């Protein structure tokens, strides 16, 4: 093997052994490409082609029935002049910021407490349970609880008649209610990831810090959290991307209403395309949303890989 491997590579034509080696290597490369070919073809057919089609659609006006009309960048210009789109952008930012702050920090605090508790498994299961429910089902549960004859009715019976109203019909209150629902429903996964990270962390730096007499707050901020940084970045990225594309819970609870006041970009994309039959406008929203998510993901991933 060693002889073959050390054969002069620059004079392949004169060396039959090397020729055979090159031949083998070429086939190895082809074989490798063939292994990944099915996945590449599937992604190209069903994913990349969809992106290209959406991009093309965003430069056209189309109602789904009649012929497409090329309109240059009119759909993008119309979007940025549309107050509903700007409300949607604002709501998406509220979702993103809330998710980043609450969905990342709250499970972290809970995970710290749980790992110190005697009933770690019980608490982990307790917080993880809502994750087993789909966003649609949790949306239906919350919509029922917050309708006129749910919690508002109980409050009315307790002497607060002004509270008897469908809370999901109150603009901006409904957005925060839906964010809390999303957090309740999604907190378990982040919690489990944190707990797993804490359990797998290298204990020697922590023990050394404790021997040096470092206090609990400093121990976590200066030693433990830097050790689980890769997990924090993954959770941050997941929460960020999920909050950008949040759809199902909102659709079930308010359908983006009242008067489109609780729409996010994902909902605006759907409504423009399939409710108002403005496929070009919907495609433009999709492209804007995709570009934003790609930029955010790129910076996060780049930093993550650079660290590693």
């Amino acid at each position, binding site marked *: 093997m060693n002889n073959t491997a050390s054969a002069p590579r620059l004079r392949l034509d004169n060396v039959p052994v090397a020729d055979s080696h090159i031949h083998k290597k070429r086939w190895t490369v082809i074989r490798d490409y063939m292994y990944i070919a099915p996945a590449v073809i599937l992604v190209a057919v069903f994913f990349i082609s969809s992106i290209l089609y959406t991009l093309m659609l965003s430069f056209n006006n189309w109602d789904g029935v009649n012929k497409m009309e090329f309109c240059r960048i009119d759909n993008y210009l119309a979007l940025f002049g549309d107050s509903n789109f700007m409300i949607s952008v604002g709501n998406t930012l509220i979702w993103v910021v809330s998710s980043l702050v609450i969905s990342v920090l709250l499970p972290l605090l809970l995970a710290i407490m749980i790992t110190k508790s005697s009933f770690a498994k019980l608490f982990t299961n307790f917080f993880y349970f809502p994750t087993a429910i789909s966003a649609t089902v949790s949306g239906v549960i919350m919509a029922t609880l917050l309708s006129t*004859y749910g919690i508002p009715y109980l409050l009315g019976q307790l002497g607060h008649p002004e509270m008897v109203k469908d809370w999901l019909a109150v603009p901006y209150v409904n957005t925060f209610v839906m964010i809390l629902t999303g957090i309740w429903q999604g907190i378990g996964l982040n919690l489990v990831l944190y707990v797993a990270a804490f359990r797998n962390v290298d204990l020697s730096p922590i023990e050394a810090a404790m021997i040096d007499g470092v206090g609990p707050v400093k121990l976590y901020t200066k030693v433990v959290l830097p050790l689980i940084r890769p997990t924090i970045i993954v959770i941050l990225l997941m929460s960020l991307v999920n909050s950008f594309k949040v759809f199902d819970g909102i659709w079930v609870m308010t359908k983006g209403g009242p008067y489109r006041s609780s729409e996010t970009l994902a909902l605006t994309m759907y409504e423009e395309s399939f409710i108002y039959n403005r496929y070009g406008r919907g495609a433009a929203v999709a492209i804007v949303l995709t570009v934003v998510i790609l930029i955010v993901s790129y910076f996060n991933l780049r930093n993550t890989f650079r660290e590693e």
Partner: protein
Amino acid sequence: MRRKLLALFLGTALLFGTMAGCGSAGKDGAGEGEVLGAKTGAVEFWNDKLNNTDQEAIDELMGSISSLSGVDVSCVAYPDTASYQTALQQSVTTADAPGLFTWWSGPQLMTLAGSGNLEDLTDIWDEYVVPNGVADSVKESLSLDGKVYAVPYSIIYNMIIYNKNVFADNGLEVPTTFDELLAVCEVLKSKGITPIALKNDGWAGFIWFQAMLAAYDPALYQGVCDGSIAYTDEKVVNVMHIWQDMIEKGYFSEPMQISDMDKSLANGTVAMMLEPNYECKTLTGDYGMEPEVDMSVFVVPPMNGGKSIIFFEIAPLCVAKGSDDKEAAKEVLKSWYTKDNQTVFTNVTGFLCTSQVVSENATANEMVRLTQDDSKYELMLRYYENTDDSIRDVALDELMKFETRAAGADDILPVIQQKADEVFGN
């Protein structure tokens, strides 16, 4: 090595073969179906209306129309309206389009008809629809350039459904003038009962808007819909201020979900709601309101005399012009409105389309009876289908702002008019 390569080639070939096989199987299947459809008279009926109906009831309905028409009709019910619209829009131009499908009247129907994708059903209308008791007055809403492009799958009438017990307990009579309606609201309000329930749904903002405009002047309503009268017209502003005054006096509830509206009407915390006839079936079946004992109906009375306006909506039933099954579909329509089929249809759906059939629900029948009294009432297509859809979309959002008191009449009307100016080129 060669064996590995051979295995890889075979594996890849198998994968592509399977994919191609799936594709061709679908195509061949469709082709076979097309031939079968043409020869044996089979037709698919696509809709998003029967998705909540029991399979047993759907089978009964399909069995009825199949045996009467001699064409094998199969139901394809989509659970989601948006996915249904997308699926249909993508297939309606092809030979694979369903023979029969439901759609929406107004601009959506006109778009399909105008694009040349719908079969002309004028002959069927004259020979098989009107003679079987469907009101000829709804023909115009299904026509383009004098040709009928759809028949009614359902005709729905909107009226005020009221709790008879609440009215009786408070010594109230059915109002015959708008002032009497205001007086009824005032009495109910003073007794701690919410007079009228408002619906919380993205599309529902127009329900009381159209009722108020038409109660003031039916011509005003029509003018606003066709663009000949501006939303900022003095009369429209006047009507909106009357409505705003009613909201501020507490005559309307906060917008609520339809299930809460039904519950509130049934338990008497709300006295009235402006809803379609199919809601009577829910009120009886789910909330135990006995028709004409616990509930009945009346039409919003006019402000300035004249006829009261009953708003109707139609779900059109269409035949795709390019479909291989269009002849079979037309054959089905010849039997669709027969008394036997409509009896089954009404029992299954609760909709009444022809005068030959009565509903099991006496209040629903009362609604139909009122529509036939043309000395007192006039039918008009509801706002949702009666105006340009891009204006409508803006108006629905603005009117919901108005109903939730997020904006006043003077705030929302110029916004709607701005869109109307764009559309009508003022």
